[in-house]
């Protein structure tokens, strides 16, 4: 099991926007971490640095003791899986084939280019689908499923990679409250049973409180809170969610009361 370490990371985009302004964090193996914060805080960017979808302008990100480097992406991604807000499944392909893409890092192009997989891969897929409870939908086309089901396929795909860590970028933002519960519970269960490190981006405070071991609060590219859910008081929440320049915001407190 690997830890994820972020050291002195600054990320500036080509248009000048500085999404991350110096991040230091160490994620323990097997832990369930939630990154909380308003839109534009840099949560997505932080997660995407961890599997190489973005590269830091300064500083480094490590998985275990390997630096996340554009030349070693295949290696890194065989250890780190990602679950997306928009599910990002290939619509035309069946659920099984989508989950099988999780095995691509382990297979050279020779068989996989012809959609040929080994029996072990099919076994791993079967297990993953059973884990997320979608065995009966195995041969359906991915776009014919509901949002919650599609996200479960996304999680099954991540499981098929047999990763050390799963990153979930706003996995429930497009789902209804019941499905959101299911997905978060599923992620928590995977973390507990398999000891996989899970890092989740959320903007729902309640979900964060209920499922996380550790909450990292971000605002405007900086970490403003790092601790246990119990330590997240009202004033901490205000710090996380305040917009720049607005110190005392009644409406913010109101909104947070309902979050």
């Amino acid at each position, binding site marked *: 099991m690997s830890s994820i370490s972020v050291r002195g990371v600054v990320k500036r985009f080509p248009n000048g926007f500085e999404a991350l302004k110096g991040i230091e964090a160490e994620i323990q193996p097997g832990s369930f971490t939630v990154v909380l914060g308003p839109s534009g805080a840099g949560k997505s960017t932080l997660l995407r640095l961890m*599997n190489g*979808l973005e590269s830091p302008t300064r500083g480094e990100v490590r998985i275990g003791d390997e630096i996340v480097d554009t030349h070693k*992406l*295949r*290696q*890194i*991604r*065989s250890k780190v*899986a*990602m679950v*997306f807000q*928009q*599910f*990002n*499944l*290939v*619509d*035309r*392909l069946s659920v099984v*084939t989508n989950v099988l*893409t*999780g*095995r*691509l*890092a382990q297979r050279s*192009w020779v068989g*996989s*280019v012809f*959609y040929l997989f080994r029996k072990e891969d099919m076994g791993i897929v079967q297990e993953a689908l059973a884990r997320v409870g979608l065995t009966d939908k195995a041969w359906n086309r991915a776009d014919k499923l509901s949002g919650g089901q599609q996200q479960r396929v*996304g999680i099954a*795909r991540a499981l098929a*990679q047999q990763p050390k860590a799963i990153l979930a970028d706003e996995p429930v933002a497009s789902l209804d409250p019941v499905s959101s519960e299911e997905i978060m519970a599923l992620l928590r269960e995977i973390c507990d049973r398999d000891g996989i490190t899970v890092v989740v981006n959320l903007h729902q405070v309640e979900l964060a409180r209920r499922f996380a071991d550790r909450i990292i609060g971000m605002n405007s590219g900086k970490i403003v809170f790092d601790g246990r859910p119990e330590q997240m008081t009202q004033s901490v929440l205000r710090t996380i969610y305040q917009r720049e320049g607005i110190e005392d915001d009644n409406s913010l407190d109101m909104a947070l009361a309902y979050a």
Partner: protein
Amino acid sequence: MSIHDLRPVRSQDLPPKPHNPVPVWVMATLAALWLILWDLEISFEALAYGVEDMGEYFSRYGQPDFSNLSRYLELMGITLATALWGTVFALLVAFFLAPLAARNFTPNPQAYRIAREILNFMRAMPDLLLALIFVAALGLGPLPGALALGVHTAGFLGKFFAESLERVDKGVCEGVASTGANFPQMIMYAGWPSILREAMGYVLYILDRNVRMASVLGLVGAGGIGLALHDTLRLFDYGQSAALILVILATILIIDYASAWLRGRLG
């Protein structure tokens, strides 16, 4: 606010009318067209006389002579086969070049530029020129025609495929990429499945186009029915020419309907 606070509103002048470039463009285009007419020495008199003559001329095609029908049908069959082979060849070449020519899939910028240039080159060369070259190398017959069609339309198909690939949803690509897939795997899982419908539409369109072009490639000795038409027209045999044109027309219309129907089934 009381009624005494109301003041009469001064009507303001409308802002100056924005400069409308359209009339300038229209005048420029008309001027250019006039110049062209003059340069090409196209006189409306010739056309007017021609129209009269043309009425009489087209009436000569009134009695199609189907005496050679079986031979014409055979030639048409060869033409169709030429188009098929050309299209399949184009499909194979485009299948391998298009992913390299798609900005979001290509493994490196050099490969992208080279693939794009190759596709552009294949598109730019008229099939006729290619057919001439292949006839010089392979001799007369339908094979050089098939090759010429194949190379030329590979350029089109490749460009169409590449543009479709570039429109694949970024999220889908990231989804597959995040599993650690390499270039060939990305293409086969995130690329082709996402554009399958469009791609098949393009292939049918190109097949349609190739049937038309195959009919005329015969004019340069690349086999098929074009040569027969050239000969009958040269001998002023309007009856046979009419028959030939009708055979070509009928075939093209059938292929058109079939491909439109197939494309309807796909869409």
